[in-house]
């Protein structure tokens, strides 16, 4: 039971990244690689401020701004310098590695004896269940905010930017600014993922972000497959499916480990799993024709 609770907890932490990737995919239709760096940045900022005993609201603000700035830089490089979005993301991610290492001063900060978000509120006596409920509340709040945002006039314009750039420019939207804002929001969400995860696992490590974009991507692709399959148009259901995608993804990873696959091959298994989800709809389509 504890095994699946841990999986659920991890899935909830990573659902914040999945929401971020969902937004950047909706705006660019390409994965934003900045994710690997901004996720670690969120965890690094959290670790430093937690060990300096800063209050929750300061840490949250710092994490959101940190991630937002990282995303905005990718956006500016992409739109103003006309550099491929994928490359722009890789550049910022690479630079963030040094930034993160510089901020920490070493490659690992333990967070075992500091008060975290999960010791702040006591819902249940069992620390694991307590963590679970706090995460549920946290993710519900983030989803509510993003869901509202996507339903506003601004949000509709944002969704249209990735869909038909010529149309949205003709309708008076500065697409450059929209992409920069969208990437900032996406990476702020990713950084929040790092904020949550480092407190759950009890440490921040410089290499914790490596390959995290694949997890976000996999979650969103799982969600997109279901969205397309069931022809879902509701923003709320779509967001709920993205979160579910993140949890399913973690479940697959957990089951992989449970059946005795050597953890060395975990990243390869996740990559193959993502490949499977991406290619399955195409393979089945080919057969039905």
């Amino acid at each position, binding site marked *: 039971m504890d095994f699946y609770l841990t999986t659920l907890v991890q899935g909830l932490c990573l659902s914040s990244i999945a929401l971020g990737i969902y937004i950047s995919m909706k705006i660019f239709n390409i994965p934003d690689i900045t994710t690997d760096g901004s996720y670690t940045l969120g965890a690094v900022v959290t670790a430093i401020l937690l060990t300096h005993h800063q209050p929750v609201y300061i840490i949250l603000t710092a994490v959101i701004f940190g991630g937002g700035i990282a995303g905005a830089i990718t956006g500016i490089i992409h739109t103003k310098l006309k550099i491929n979005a994928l490359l722009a993301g890789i550049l910022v991610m690479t630079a963030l590695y040094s930034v993160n290492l510089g901020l920490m001063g070493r490659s690992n900060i333990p967070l075992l004896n500091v008060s975290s978000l999960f010791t702040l509120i006591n819902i249940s006596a069992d620390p694991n269940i307590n963590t679970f409920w706090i995460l549920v509340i946290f993710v519900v709040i983030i989803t509510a905010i993003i869901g509202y945002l996507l339903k506003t006039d601004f949000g*509709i*314009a944002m*969704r249209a930017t990735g869909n*038909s750039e*010529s*149309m949205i420019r003709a309708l*008076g*939207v*500065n697409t450059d600014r929209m992409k920069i804002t969208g990437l900032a929001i996406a990476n702020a969400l990713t950084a929040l993922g790092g904020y949550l995860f480092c407190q759950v696992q009890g440490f921040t490590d410089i290499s914790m972000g490596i390959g995290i974009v694949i997890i976000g991507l996999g979650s969103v692709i799982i969600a997109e497959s279901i969205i397309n399959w069931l022809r879902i148009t509701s923003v709320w259901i779509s967001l709920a499916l993205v979160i579910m995608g993140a949890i399913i993804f973690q479940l697959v990873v957990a089951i992989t480990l449970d059946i005795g696959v050597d953890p060395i091959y975990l990243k390869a298994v996740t990559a193959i799993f993502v490949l499977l989800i991406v290619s399955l709809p195409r393979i089945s389509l080919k057969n039905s024709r």
Partner: protein
Amino acid sequence: MIDIKNVHKTFHTGKANQVNAVNGVTLHINSGEFVVIVGANGSGKTTLLDMVAGSVLPGSGNINIDGKDVTKLQDYKRSAWIARVFQNPVSGTASELSILDNFRLAAIRTQAKGLTIGINETFKNQVRERISTLGMGLENKIGQPMGTLSGGQRQALTLLMSVMDNCKILLLDEPTAALDPKSAQIVMKTADDLISHYRLTAILITHNLKDAFTYGNRLILMGEGQVAKDLDTAQKSLLKQNDLFDWFG
């Protein structure tokens, strides 16, 4: 309304594939005029239209709209005056967004897109009412993604979207080129009705000489980046359809 003064545009300057797309065009288009532009491929029609819209900025010359110099103004800033219908139905609408969402964006074309939810029952009814005028039965499908509709339906909706917000100028770049003859006819008829009903200043680019003959009150022939012929309402009314075919003979 639109004042184009000695406008030039060259692509790939100094390279082997240099193109002088527009080569000194001066045009004055009055408010309420419906200008039809015809011309062979490469005659500079679309580049000229793009420069009015702002998606291409002129190399030299000036463009004024409503007395304001817009020569260096980006396309998204010109949306205060201009609505566009593109050749490709995909360019004028967002496929994954619902009809309603598309109309919401069009309804605030000249305004800021803020952090409030603008779609309410009043707005939905207004959209249904507008769409029902097309007689395509789309008024009951406003929650459907735009991508599920045919090209003709999408172009007709794009036209309706252009008058959802205050619109002075309507730019039509071969709006029927991708459509079957029947849809093309419906779209052209809708465009003509909207232009006269809202007294819009309009520019239509077309390769369909029958449309060029039937619609509009001014006809321009472009060739090699310049205005080759410019017929006002009186001259156009004297024109016979065969004369038009001879221009391209």
